[in-house]
C-alpha cells in the first residue's frame, strides 16, 4: 500500500465482488465496525431484479440484478443506526475543494463515478456507466489514492481524471456525489436485525410489480421469447443481457453468491442454523444464472443456434426457483 499522510490512520483495502458493498464495508471496518461485504449486502437487502425497458443503454433495456445505486449504503444506515452525509456539487472545482478538505481532516470519502473516465480500468471495461463506487483515502501530489474495491490493490487517479469521472453527465449522473460517515454507533448484530433485513429483501423479490423481482424476470422472458431469431439485433440483445448480468458490476449469479455468503455468515453470527440450507439453495440458483449466461454467450459467439424461446424457458425456470426460494425463506424468518 502507498504511504499515507501521517494524520490518516492506516486504511486497509479489501477486494470485493461488488463496488458499493465493497466501499461501504471497507469504510465501516475502518471506523471499527466488524463489517464484511456479504453482511453489508445482506443487511441492506441488496438482492434484486429489475427489468426497465424504458431506460435505454445504447438502445437496449436496463436489466439489473441488484438494488439501484446507493440503495446498499442507504439500506445499511437504518439497521446500524448510522448517519452518513451525502453531498453533490454544481461544479467540479467545488467538488474537488470539498474532497481535499475532507481528506485533510483525515476522512475516508466514498464517491460515485463514471467507469468510462477512470484511466486505471482496463480499456475493454470502460463503458459509460455512471454509478461506480470507489473510496478515496488520501492524496499525494496531484494523485488521489483510490481504494476501488473491485480491484485487488489500491489505485491512483490524477485529479483531472477523477474530476471528469465524478462529473460525467447522462443517466445516473453522479454530480460529484460523495458520502462519508457522521456517526457510526457500534450496533451488535442481532437475530431481529437479520430477520428484518431478510423480510425486506423477500418483499422486494416477490413485489406485486410487473417489472421487479421474479415478475420482472418473467416479463423479460416474455420479451425474449418474442425476439426474431434471424435478426442481428437479437444477438446484440442477448449479448447485452449477459453483459448486464456478468460484466457491469458483479453479475446476476455473483449477487446470488454474495447473498448466499450473507445467509451463511448470519447463520453463524446470530445462531440461525435454519439459514444454512437456504445459503446452499441460493448458491445452486446462482449456478443456474451462470448456465443461462453461458448459453447466451455461446449463442453470441455463434456456437449455438439463436433460440430465444429456449433462453426464455431458462429464465422462467430461474424465476420459478427464486419465487419458491423466497417464499420458503420468508417462512423461515417469520
Amino acid at each position, binding site marked *: 500500500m502507498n504511504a499515507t499522510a501521517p494524520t490518516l490512520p492506516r486504511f486497509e483495502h479489501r477486494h470485493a465482488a461488488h463496488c458499493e458493498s465493497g466501499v461501504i464495508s471497507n469504510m465501516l471496518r475502518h471506523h471499527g465496525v466488524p463489517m464484511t461485504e456479504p453482511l453489508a449486502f445482506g443487511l441492506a437487502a441488496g438482492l434484486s431484479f429489475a427489468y426497465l425497458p424504458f431506460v435505454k443503454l445504447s438502445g437496449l433495456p436496463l436489466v439489473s440484478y441488484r438494488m439501484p445505486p446507493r440503495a446498499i449504503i442507504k439500506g445499511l444506515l437504518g439497521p446500524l443506526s448510522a448517519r452518513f452525509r451525502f453531498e453533490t456539487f454544481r461544479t467540479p472545482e467545488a467538488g474537488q475543494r470539498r474532497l481535499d478538505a475532507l481528506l485533510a481532516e483525515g476522512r475516508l470519502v466514498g464517491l460515485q463515478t463514471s467507469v468510462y473516465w477512470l484511466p486505471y480500468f482496463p480499456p475493454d471495461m470502460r463503458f459509460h456507466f455512471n454509478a461506480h463506487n470507489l473510496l478515496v483515502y488520501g492524496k499525494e501530489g496531484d494523485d488521489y489514492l483510490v481504494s476501488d474495491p473491485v480491484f485487488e490493490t489500491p489505485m491512483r487517479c490524477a485529479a483531472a481524471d477523477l474530476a471528469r469521472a465524478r462529473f460525467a453527465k447522462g443517466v445516473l449522473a453522479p454530480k460529484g456525489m460523495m458520502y462519508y460517515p457522521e456517526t457510526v454507533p457500534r450496533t451488535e448484530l442481532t437475530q431481529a436485525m437479520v430477520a428484518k433485513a431478510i423480510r425486506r429483501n423477500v418483499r422486494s423479490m416477490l413485489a406485486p410489480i410487473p417489472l421487479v423481482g421474479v415478475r420482472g424476470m418473467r416479463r423479460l422472458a416474455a420479451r425474449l421469447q418474442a425476439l426474431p431469431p434471424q435478426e442481428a439485433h437479437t444477438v446484440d440483445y442477448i449479448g447485452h443481457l*449477459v*453483459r448486464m448480468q456478468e460484466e457491469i458490476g458483479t453479475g446476476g449469479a455473483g449477487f446470488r453468491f454474495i447473498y448466499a455468503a450473507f445467509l451463511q455468515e448470519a447463520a453463524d453470527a446470530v445462531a440461525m442454523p435454519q439459514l444454512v440450507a437456504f445459503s446452499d439453495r441460493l448458491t445452486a440458483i446462482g449456478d443456474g444464472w451462470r448456465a443461462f449466461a453461458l448459453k447466451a454467450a455461446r449463442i453470441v*459467439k455463434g456456437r449455438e443456434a439463436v433460440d430465444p424461446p429456449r433462453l426464455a424457458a431458462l429464465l422462467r425456470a430461474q424465476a420459478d426457483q427464486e419465487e419458491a426460494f423466497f417464499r420458503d425463506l420468508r417462512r423461515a424468518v417469520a
Partner: protein
Amino acid sequence: MDIEGVPQEGNATLAGHRKLMYARDAEGRSVAVGSRGWEAEEIVTRHAIEVIDAQAAEARERVRAGAASPLEYWMYQRRMDVALLSQVTGFWQWRVRRHLQPRHFAALPPRHLARYAEALGLDVRQLRTLP
C-alpha cells in the same frame, strides 16, 4: 459454485486483473476467491466492443468521403451514441443528428463546438479532424 468452478480463463478484457467471487470450499463454507475471468463474459464484452468499433470505423469512412462530420467518428470512438451524446451535451437528439452532417457541423459556433469537445474529452482542434 465450488472453488474449482471459479473461472480462471484469463480474459483479455480484464487485462490481468482479478475479480472477486464467492464460492464454496470442500466443507461447503463460503469463501472469497479471485477469478482471472470467464469465457462467457469475455465473449459478450468483446461482442459489444466490436459492434461499437465497427460503427466508429464506418463513421471514419463516411467522414473521409465527406458524408459525415468528424463528430460522428468521435461519438462512437468515445463509446457513445446519439442518445448518450445528447444527454451529456444537453443538445436535443435531433440537433445532434444534424451536427453529424458536415454542412451543419461546419456552421457550428465555437461555444457549441466547445460543448461537444468538453463532453467528449477532446480539444476543439481534435474534434474538427480525424486522428
